[in-house]
Each structure stands twice: as structure tokens, then as C-alpha cells.
């Protein structure tokens, strides 16, 4: 037996290489910013966001998501914060739906498809739904942070500090769009992956150990 040599980098190398190639191909396909996908995705985000998230906005402010009217910005949503007391626009922000919502989902989808997770019926469906919903929270966090910066300019409370911390550590870094789905995928589908790796390596190790 060759000391601490890791099977994932030696005996499993072809499998790993295949996984990487399939992942990159799938990722390129899923994450490509097709205009029609962008229009559909932002409509979905606006619909769900306005119905679920923004209905509990802080009074007198009301938040609302509207698709960006510019023809070349199919992936962009304008988040509007309206002051009901003065009946005026408090602030508006442009949110890139592709970067915030779609990219992490595409990464997770590519990982899940490339990893060839074994279909486990209800559990798989629940895992996928939980993952997709969790990945959308990053975008929601961004909007809540922007909205709070308008509503509460003082940023005095602990919740504001936590919100800023969460925004700076999870939303602002571009690499988090890849790190979060990777961690989520590993947590949800690790069992089948590691079992397959173990199944492939153990007979070889047993043969080596027996000489």
C-alpha cells in the first residue's frame, strides 16, 4: 500500500476527470445568459419576490421588484423602495438576477447532474428543492440589505450588523456564487458520491494489503 496516496487523485482520476469535463460542459450550458431564460427567470423572481418576501416590508416603506425595461438588460431587475408617507420614491437598485440567483443555481444543477446522484425518490426531490430554495436566499439577502440601508440609515442595531456581515461574506464576494452551491451539493449528495468512491477503491486496497 502506498502510504497516504489518495484514491480520489490516483485510481479515481479518470472518474474525477470525467466529472470535471461533464461539469464544465453542463455549467456552460446552464449558466449561459440566454435572453429568453433571463426574461423568464426575472419574471419568476419578481413574482415570487413580490408575493412572498416583499409583502412584509417595513412601513411606511414598500419594496417592489420590477423587470428592467431596457431591452439589453434581460437579466436585470429594478428593486424599488417606495415611501408611502410622502408618496415618493425612496430608492431604486439594479439587481443582476444572473449573478445573484441564476449562477449559483446553475452551478448546483451542473454539479448534481455531473455527479450522477442516485435517484432516491422523495428524498432526492426534497434535497433538490431545499437546495434550490436555499440558493435563492442569497439574492433575497441582497435585496433585504439594500432595503434596510434605505429604511434604517443609522445601522445601529445588532440585526443590521448581522445583515451587513452576511451580505459582505455571502453576497458581495463573487466566488460565493460557486462556493455555496458546492458546499450545499456536498452536504446533500455526499453519501452516494463517497460510497461510489469507496466501492471502487476498497477491493484494490484489500488486494494490496494482502500482498
Amino acid at each position: 500500500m502506498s502510504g497516504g496516496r489518495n484514491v480520489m487523485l490516483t485510481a479515481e482520476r479518470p472518474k474525477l476527470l470525467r466529472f470535471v469535463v461533464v461539469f464544465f460542459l453542463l455549467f456552460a450550458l446552464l449558466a449561459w445568459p440566454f435572453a429568453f431564460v433571463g426574461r423568464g427567470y426575472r419574471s419568476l423572481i419578481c413574482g415570487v419576490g413580490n408575493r412572498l418576501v416583499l409583502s412584509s416590508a417595513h412601513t411606511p416603506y414598500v419594496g417592489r421588484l420590477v423587470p428592467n425595461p431596457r431591452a439589453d438588460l434581460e437579466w436585470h431587475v429594478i428593486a424599488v423602495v417606495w415611501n408611502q408617507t410622502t408618496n415618493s420614491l425612496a430608492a431604486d437598485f439594479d439587481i443582476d438576477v444572473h449573478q445573484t440567483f441564476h449562477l449559483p443555481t446553475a452551478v448546483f444543477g451542473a454539479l448534481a447532474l455531473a455527479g450522477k446522484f442516485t435517484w432516491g425518490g422523495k428524498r432526492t426531490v426534497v434535497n433538490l428543492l431545499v437546495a434550490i430554495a436555499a440558493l435563492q436566499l442569497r439574492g433575497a439577502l441582497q435585496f433585504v440589505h439594500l432595503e434596510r440601508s434605505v429604511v434604517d440609515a443609522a445601522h445601529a442595531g445588532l440585526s443590521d450588523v448581522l445583515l451587513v456581515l452576511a451580505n459582505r461574506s455571502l453576497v458581495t464576494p463573487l466566488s460565493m456564487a460557486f462556493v455555496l452551491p458546492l458546499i450545499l451539493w456536498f452536504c446533500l449528495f455526499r453519501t452516494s458520491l463517497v460510497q461510489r468512491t469507496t466501492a471502487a477503491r476498497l477491493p484494490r486496497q484489500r488486494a494490496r494489503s494482502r500482498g
Partner: protein
Amino acid sequence: MTGPIYPMGPDRKTGKRHHHAPVAIHGDRVASPFFGFRYPLTVAAIAAPLFVFYCYPYADNGVMAAGIHSYLSLYAKIVGTVLSALDPSVVVNGNDVAGHMFSVRIVQTCDAMEVNILLAAALAGFPMPPGRRLVTVLASVPSMTLINIIRLCVLYWVGAHAPSWFRRTHETLAPLLLVACALVIFLVATSRAKPESPKCRVGAT
């Protein structure tokens, strides 16, 4: 599945444990350093304070804000020094690296600190001897810094010579490759790691 899938414990002849061989099975799970909650919780416990330290909204005129600004200026100087070897027109002014054709500003997320923190936490929490753990953590941080400096130089080059590709490279390709590099460093660093003790290999499920 109730019984063990691969009942491999210590070698019957030598009594030694096999490296990377699972030693215990819980239900249908093969025990490994990744299973259970111990490893993820350890990584989270290490990473969380580092994230708080780095991302905390410090006062603009405070010592910490000044320290972070100095650190980013140093980062910009390093990037500017590397770039000036390729493009003599590059000048560094504070956090700005400016050339004739393009300029970049090094801000807090440009230093790939989040990837560094997660990688260092993942390696520091990995069950292996303390000495090796220290070496891997100390080696991984400069490696990631070097990769990030290369990333910034490539981004400058793309911005100067293929500006239409800059946004896509900056927001999609570069972070993807950065995370992939961190993953490769993690796999390489842990590939030859011997377990700290047999106990560490069993996840607390």
C-alpha cells in the same frame, strides 16, 4: 442496509489500520472524515470568527479600517509590480492600479479572502497530525494569494485587450477557476494526509 458494506478494520496480520480505509459503518454510511457533523462544525467554527473579523463593518475612521486600507494598498502594490513587468505604463496609487489602457481598483473582495478563509478552515479542521495541518494551512494561503495575483493580472490584461470579455471573466470565469484551484489545493493537501488517530476517522453521526 443494516450490515457493514466493507468491514475493514485493522489488518489481521499486522494490526495496523489502513490509511483511507473506512473503519466503521453507521447504517448505510461509510465512516470517513467527511461524515457526521464534527468536520463541518469544526470548519464552521474556524471560519465564522475569521469572516466576522474581516467583514465586520468597522468605522470608516477607525484603526481597523485604516489597517484594511493599508493591506489592500500593499496588495495593489504587489499586483502593480507584477503588471509593470508586462506593461511599463502601470502606476499604483493607493488601491488603484492604472495603466494607459485599463485600470483596476483593489477592494475588499478582490483579495479572495473568503476563499482563503474557507480553504484554511477546511484544512485546519481536517483530521490529520497537527504539524502537517499547520504546514498545509501555511502553504495553502500563499498559494491562493499567488493564484489570486495571477487572476488580477489576467483580469487587467482582459480589460485592456478584450474589454467586452471583462465582465464575464470577472464575474463568472475567474471566480470559478479560483474556487476550482482552492478545491485542487484541498484535495492535494489532504490526499497524503495520514489520520491523526483512528478515532478521528469515525464521523459522529
